[in-house]
């Protein structure tokens, strides 16, 4: 008896499974053919605009200027030959070779980059190219995406160009911590959430388009979790479009900054008596526009200019930062905020966000590399001012390393000459290089101390 019981169950299960397969097959036969057609159509709209991007990128972290060729992806978005890609692919490139869909190679130049969104724009140089020019891909509206929507990722995974992978949108508004940094050291991803997809995205896909079934570019593939299965992330097209437009117009993205950090209200609504939403200020930079206007941690922003603001969840934070960044630089805005139950007002004059990172310079004869110091760099390092140049790399075995120079030191004096910025440093360096002095004393700032570094340039080994 006992043996019999499992059998009927097993048979039923088989039948149901079989039925599923049957109906599944017949459904796929009709829908599948339709879907296949759509995929082909979408492919045809975007594949000819796909570009394999091979920039030669600069890196100064070893103390010398290292050049290396990397591979990424890109897509043509304007008939003049503008290509969008990632900042981490081509944002610091010397020159770029692009391979088009027809396997022809074309040179390209960097128009501009934006580390904060990890985007860069290249311009293809068609002056020596006589074949058919690539078409342009169209941007879709990334505010109207749905989880489960079918998408394709196009690009050059592991440098395998013209590769297409297929999947769905896994979630439309993934929040990833803004503490993430690009390989070149800049914070990134502050102003956007991400489209998460299970379409395979591998190294080399970076900068390539994520496309919907109509063939519109809905995102730029930028990140993936390594050693995970199909966890890729794209920058939403609406963010891309705005940044690209700005780079093409002005070569860069101008953003406003008021100096507040915010956090989600979620479990703190009661504590801060937040009855009508708001954005909780978690930190205020002391000498920033917001700091000067009297804002402090614990204030609840209700209204910024003409816009009511609210952020209960992390997913809403990037959009708030973006709304601040999108304000015109130097404009006075009225801000309503709540403190201890009372609503107050302040007028804040926005300042420029400024460049996240400075300009690199190789100090070849002395064996190190420096970077100019921008406001954002100074804030991150809690520097009192922008004086000096930051040591970005020290060459092993060079005079600077022998003298005890370390990355992150700030060069404040060369000999007796004070250094205020990179231009002054370059001038002194050129002058001293011409004199062939054997000893050069640098005064650097390391944390809160000064330090002497003696460069010996006559070690005789040539």
């Amino acid at each position: 008896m006992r043996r019999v019981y499992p059998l009927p169950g097993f048979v039923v299960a088989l039948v149901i499974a079989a039925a599923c397969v049957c109906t599944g097959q017949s459904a796929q036969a009709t829908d599948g053919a339709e879907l296949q057609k759509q995929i082909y159509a979408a492919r045809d709209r975007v594949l000819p605009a796909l570009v394999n991007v091979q920039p030669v990128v600069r890196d100064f972290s070893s103390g010398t200027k290292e050049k290396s060729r990397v591979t990424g992806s890109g897509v043509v978005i304007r008939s003049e030959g503008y290509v969008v890609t990632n900042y981490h692919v081509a944002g610091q490139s010397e020159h770029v070779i692009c391979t088009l869909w027809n396997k022809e190679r074309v040179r390209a130049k960097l128009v501009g980059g934006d580390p904060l969104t990890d985007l860069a724009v290249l311009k293809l140089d068609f002056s020596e190219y006589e074949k058919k020019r690539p078409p342009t891909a169209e941007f879709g509206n990334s505010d109207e995406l749905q989880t489960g929507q079918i998408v394709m990722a196009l690009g050059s995974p592991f440098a395998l160009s013209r590769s297409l992978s297929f999947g769905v949108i896994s979630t439309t508004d993934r929040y990833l911590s803004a503490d993430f940094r690009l390989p070149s050291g800049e914070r990134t991803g502050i102003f956007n959430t991400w489209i998460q997809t299970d379409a395979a995205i591998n190294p080399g896909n970076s900068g390539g388009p994520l496309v919907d079934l109509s063939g519109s570019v809905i995102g730029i593939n930028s990140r993936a979790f390594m050693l995970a299965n199909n966890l890729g992330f794209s920058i939403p097209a609406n963010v891309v479009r705005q940044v690209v437009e700005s780079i093409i117009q002005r070569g860069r993205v101008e953003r406003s900054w008021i100096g507040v950090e915010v956090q989600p209200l979620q479990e703190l609504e009661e504590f801060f008596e937040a009855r009508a939403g708001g954005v909780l200020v978690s930190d205020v930079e002391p000498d920033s526009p917001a700091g000067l206007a009297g804002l402090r941690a614990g204030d609840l922003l209700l209204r910024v200019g003409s816009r009511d603001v609210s952020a209960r969840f992390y997913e809403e934070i990037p959009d708030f930062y973006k709304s601040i960044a999108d304000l015109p630089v130097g404009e006075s805005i009225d801000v309503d905020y709540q403190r201890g139950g009372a609503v107050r007002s302040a007028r804040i004059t926005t300042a420029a966000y400024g460049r996240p990172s400075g300009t690199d310079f190789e100090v070849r004869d002395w064996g190190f590399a420096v970077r100019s110091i921008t406001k954002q760099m100074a804030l991150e390092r809690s520097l009192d001012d922008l004086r000096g140049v930051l040591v970005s790399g020290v060459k092993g075995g060079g005079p600077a390393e022998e003298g005890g120079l370390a990355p992150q030191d700030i060069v404040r004096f060369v000999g007796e000459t004070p250094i205020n910025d990179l231009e002054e440093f370059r001038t002194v360096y050129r002058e001293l290089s011409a004199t062939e002095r054997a000893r050069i004393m640098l005064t650097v700032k390391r944390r809160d101390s000064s330090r002497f570094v003696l460069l010996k340039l006559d070690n005789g080994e040539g």
Partner: protein
Amino acid sequence: MEARKRRLLIPVLLLAGLAVEAEANPRKIYDRHSASVVAVTYYVETHFMRQVREVEGREVGVLVGEDLVMLNGIVITSSSTGARPHTFRVHFEGGAVVPAAYIGRDEFANVAFLRVEGELPEGAKPLEFDPRAKVRVGDEVYVLGLLPENLHPMVRISAGRIVAHVREPKSFLVTDLPPDEALGGPVFSTSGKVLGVLSELGGAGPAFASGFGGAEQGYYGIILTAQTLQPLIDDPPRRGEVRRAWLGITLQALTPDMAEYWGLATRSGIIVNSVIPGSPANAAGLQEGDLVVGINGGPIPVSQEDHVPIFVEQVGSSGVGSELQLEVIRDGAPLRLEVVLAAAPKSRLDAEQYSSPEFELTVRELVFSDYRAFDLDPGFAGVLVSRVKNGGWSGIGGLQPGDIIQRVDEEAIGAPEDLKRILEAAIDNQSRKLVFFVQRGRRTQFITVQPNWEES
């Protein structure tokens, strides 16, 4: 006269030496002194695959007084979470196990002391160091160390040689005795005299030698001698009591190249990189950029960066309240300054702490080095989260080690005591929600901790 006398003495000494030699072979050293060697076990928190675990540590200890055990300071510094080791047990040869309490550590010699809290087993006897014991390069030496756990007997003896006598930047003996299984074990001469204990060139070694080690160079054993150890045994350091003196400067080595560049007669010394406000150096008028080239009429043997700890020890061991004469060069002109040393600020290891089992949170007071490490203003108040269980209420709320708690709800937190008061009140009231205001890195934020009293 002198010469003749010495000649007469030599044969006598040689005979005496031979007699002692014959008496103290390694077997005898082992038999006589095994009972003074103990295994000290303890528990300490360590990060393990992103989790915090309590792991057992085991070190060689030496019974140096009726109830006093000396061991390498690594026992105190080994925790990767900064938590204190606990549940010390002293295992004697023969199997007796007696609990012990931590007394303190000398940071220069890097040795720690425990007080045995219970009856010592029969035959356990303190080891006596011989300050007159002498060895030279090439001499054979022995060390008593431990075999792996659960083997009986547990003590082993190893032989080695004095392979060098380093004179610069400081005088010490180097041996080829292996410091791995015998770190902290007693070292004997061939005549059976107790020279000192085995330490190493590197992290577990004395402060002055900490910069010289490194796995890539292999491990070098060095000997901490009776001259260093006896004063510590006579008056062991106590936790929380600062004996170390300080000047209150940050500094770098004055190298021969720099001295030449500035046209100085000296070849060594230190450069004052910053003067800490309110410090003895500040009171004495020392300034950033000053070159200190002499101390109490003698030189400062610091000519390269690795030697800086020697100056720090020179000052630190001078004694709180003592006066130092500094020879200073300021803007090329010589200058004499007198500094009265004060007690150094409390170290991280001595910071007051408070641990809440309910909130699974441990905090400690901010000490001077934290103000520097976190770049805090002198008036800044808060307590530092030293550990938090990630599955506890505090961990779920998002508190992390390294966070500095400034406020809980509306109350400012300036000391572990403040947090203790608030968390105990929360326990009494079964509070549902506490809002912590913390600094993380250079940013502040609010963190909600929501206790679940039903669950507990």
